């Protein structure tokens, strides 16, 4: 049997891949993809802990996270579409309006 630590390590590693992608990619769509990867890493941890604790709370969390992820993707991509329409750029470092 696989100990719980292995899942934790896998989840952490996957999460950091997501963090890395989010921090370094210039394309907004790739940043969104990185967020999805991070969410999946978290989901994996939830499911793993739920399994090892004989508890369903982790599964509940995963369902809600997937719901929120769907909502987030819809909203984020809608924002992206309107940003690209207005700025003609899908690169995050060319959008600098967010400052005082």
């Amino acid at each position: 049997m696989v100990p719980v630590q292995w899942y934790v390590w896998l989840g952490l590693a996957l999460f950091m891949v997501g963090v890395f992608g989010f921090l370094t990619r210039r394309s907004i769509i790739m940043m969104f993809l990185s967020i999805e990867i991070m969410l999946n890493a978290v989901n994996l941890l939830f499911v793993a802990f739920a399994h090892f604790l004989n508890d369903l709370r982790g599964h509940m969390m995963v369902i809600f996270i997937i719901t929120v992820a769907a909502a987030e993707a819809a909203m984020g991509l809608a924002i992206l579409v309107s940003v690209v329409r207005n700025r003609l750029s899908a690169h995050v470092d060319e959008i600098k309006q967010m400052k005082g």
Partner: protein
Amino acid sequence: MDHLYLLIPALPLLGFIINITLGRGLIKDKAHLVAIPAVFLSWAAAMYTVAQVAGGTIVSRDFYTWIVSGGFSVSAGFLIDQLTAVMLVVVTTVSLLVHIYSTGYMRGDKGFYRFFAYLNLFTFSMLMLIMSNNFLQLYFGWEAVGLCSYFLIGFWYEKKSAADAGKKAFIVNRFGDFGFGLGVFMIFLTFGTLHYGPVFQSAPGVLAGKTVMLFGQSVPLATLISLLLFCGAVGKSAQLPLHVWLPDAMEGPTPVSALIHAATMVTAGVFMVARCNPIFSLSPLAMAVVGLTGAVTALFAATIALVQNDIKRIIAYSTISQLGYMFLACGVGAYGAGIFHLYTHAFFKALLFLGAGSVMHSMQGELDVQKMGGLKKYMPVTYWTFLAASLSISGIPGFAGFFSKDEILWKAYSAGGIGTLLWVLGTLAALLTAFYSFRLFFLAFHGKFRGGHELEHHLHESPKSMTMPLTILGMGAVAAGWVGLPPFIGNALGVSNTFGAFLAPVFGNITESAASGEIMITGISVAVALLGILIAAYMYVWKPGAATALKEKLPAVHKVLWNKYYVDELYNFIIVKPAFWTARNFIAGTSDGKVIEGVVNGVPRAIDSFGRKLRKLQTGMLQDYAAIMAFCIFAFIAAALVFWKTMGG
């Protein structure tokens, strides 16, 4: 039906909410169709409740815990006993009639809906005041009626004098309320609760012999609390020396004067003193202060009323004077008599004001009695009802005012001691009252019209919506007193003093016995009243020049009275001017200009300069923010790891 009394305050509140939210856009000039049913149903519920109370059902319960803070706990609750029942009759009846009257009086005003919303709010607040079962709720109602009074005095806020009068009323009341607030604090400190029940029950035991050190002097606690509470009553009921706001409050619409500044709000002080009678009764000194203040005010205001020409101001000073009577009664321990006078006064004084409003309505807003005259033939209903009110206030036997005033004077006389002095002052005031009331009456309704032809052309009787309340109140002014017949008449007829008996559970059983002296006292006061009327008739009907002649004979007295004893000027000199001087020279320049503005401007300036440096960090790049966030998480976890041991993990 058990909780029907909840509707009494709830309906006016509902009316207020509907009118204030929907009034501007939706209801507009239909506001009375919301307000009047609300008050009418409230009145009906009140009548039902009063009948219940008469049947012996006293309501006393908490509904909702309002504030809990440590040992301090205040609940919202209702106490409906006999005293409250009397007030319920007065407040809801007068309020209902004034509402109806206002539909005619305020028709066409652009603030129509606002007016009715405020009237409803006032009714709600007044009902909360009289129905409360603890001091804090009383205080809430107390301040809320003050607020409504402010709104309504300044109702025509475009007029500077109206706005100023509103402010004056508000500020003068603050002086009294300051004392009242302190009194409530003292009660909480002493008793640990603000509920009427426990406070009044334990008052004799707790307060007996207790003193506090105040400015190096030992003052009985009961006296201190009583006087502090009385401060509030002085402000709210416009007694000396805080009476100055009430005459100015006449800037408000006349129905407001009738409702708030004659029948209900200003009597809140009397109600409060009567309500707190278990505390007041413990302090002879406080009682003496109450009685003397009342008597002096009664005489003082009556003298001013002798010479004024503004119809509403005359009635306003008469109100102050009559309120003085009520305090006089409380001062000699005759709370029942005071409340009785409050009750009859509500009818005839509201009637006087509404009648004055009717006259003004006809006179195109003219207030000067010297420009009126001979209105009898133009406005018969107003004339007859006004006559009834004047007879009532003068104390002519058979009219409401007679019974209550007579009872007060007899109680004062029979109390002995300082009571005799109070009786003398009261009787003098009664003479003046009869005189100025009929001076006003004769000047306005008899003789020739002095306002010019064009104005005469416009004279007309008021519409039904205004005369109907006048008629009802007129009947009240005649008949309302018969519920409290004095013993010597009552015994002859075989009925006892119903009113006194009704209130007996609240004020303790005061034995009523017919005394031979009472007939004498009654005779004196009736004679005095008739004398006053005769003098007025002589000076203003039979020999119209007599008044002017008297004025020229005593110019100094007239000048002092005409200027209301220079009280306003005195206050202006003592309080207002120094306050302005301090504000201009000290506060504006030094404390506000340097200290406060320095801090107020310095803080943003510091933040601004800091922000200027910090905003370099804000690049507008999403990933930079994310990186900083991630780095901080990294730092936090690292710190947690390093200090793991020290944190005891």
